[in-house]
């Protein structure tokens, strides 16, 4: 039988990556229901850190959805990212309470110190800055989340100090390692 290229392409591509298996298991767990796309994307992003073309193609084929559909949904929601994450991530809450308490000053100083605006990654790929609304800790505003750690009542200076410390620790660790 003649198998055209298109047909063979449409099967989910074979993969050795165990993280892909995790995604495949998730699709299966949701009974291949197409309406679970957002759940599957959450799981995929957790496993890979971001959503690249291979991964999105894999999901589309597993769930039998048009490619554009998957991309359209993933790009609609701010949580999903198509770029690899930086080594360190500093999330600054820009919700109303944090804004009122000076979150913009934190962002301004971050840009001045590290040259990174919200949504950007530093040139060396080590630090990304994200703005986010909101983790729901308004009583402790302004709020930061540095590498997953939730921090309240921060100032521009304390933020810079924390990040410098973080970057310096890496350097030390690298110097010790070899």
């Amino acid at each position, binding site marked *: 039988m003649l198998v055209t290229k298109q047909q063979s*392409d449409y099967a989910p591509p074979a993969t050795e990556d165990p993280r892909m298996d995790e995604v495949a298991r998730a699709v299966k767990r949701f009974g291949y229901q197409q309406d679970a796309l957002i759940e599957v994307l959450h799981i995929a992003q957790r496993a890979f850190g971001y959503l690249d073309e291979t991964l999105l193609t894999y999901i589309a084929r597993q769930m039998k959805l*048009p*490619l*554009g*559909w*998957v*991309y*359209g949904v993933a*790009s*609609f929601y701010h949580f999903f990212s198509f770029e690899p994450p930086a080594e360190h991530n500093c999330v600054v809450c820009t919700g109303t309470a944090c804004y009122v308490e000076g979150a913009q000053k934190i962002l301004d100083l971050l840009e001045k110190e590290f040259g990174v605006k919200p949504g950007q990654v530093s040139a060396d790929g080590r630090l990304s800055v994200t703005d986010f609304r909101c983790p729901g800790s308004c009583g402790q505003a302004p709020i930061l989340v540095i590498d997953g750690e939730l921090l309240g009542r921060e100032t521009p200076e304390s933020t810079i100090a924390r990040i410098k410390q973080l970057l310096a620790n890496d350097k030390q660790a690298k110097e010790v390692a070899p």
Partner: protein
Amino acid sequence: MSVITLTLNGEMISGLTGQTLLEVIREHGVELPTLCHLEGISERGGCRLCMVEVNGRMTAACVTKANEGMHVNTHTEKLQNYRRMILELLFAERNHVCAVCVMNGHCELQSVAAAQGMDSVRYDYLSPELPMDASHKRFVLDHNRCILCTRCLRVCDEVEGAHTWELKGRGIHSMVITDLNGPWGESPSCTSCGKCVQVCPTGALYDQGSTVAEMEKKHDFLPWILGGRGKKEWNW
């Protein structure tokens, strides 16, 4: 289907249950401007040009079912003013430079603006930096002229059945894309049927090689196909 009676601009008119207000209004010879609406594909209700006042409240005629006893006004001063404002917003959103556009003279946005008396744009032109995609061997996509009406998405999904087109992002950053945001020419799902190009109201989609004012579009094929397939007029 039963007959319903409603008031259109002070006159009693009749329509059928299930019809949209837009259908009823146009049947009675009152012209409403539209951009995202296209007969033969689903309604979107996005461009808001067909806004009318129903019992004093504004609603888009294309997505509102005609109901018994509705009082509909289509051309109040406020509505006319809002329509011009919406057109100004569209012209300010992207880089609509009619003079150097392939669709100059045939463009729906251009002619709706002229018809509605939109003589200038008071808002800041946003002048976004937008790419063009000329990777397809037959067609070109120019985001500068796109008004995000999504006719291309709908015709591709509903008539051609390929679902090549999608929207990416949201809000002011929305863009039409093919598949995973790759070059159109490399789209694995595109059948190059060209329906999207023909239904596009502006110069966002056009034939390779056309130059200023050369591109014209025809969407007569839609009722033809939809009558044949959808309404099962082709019985062989």
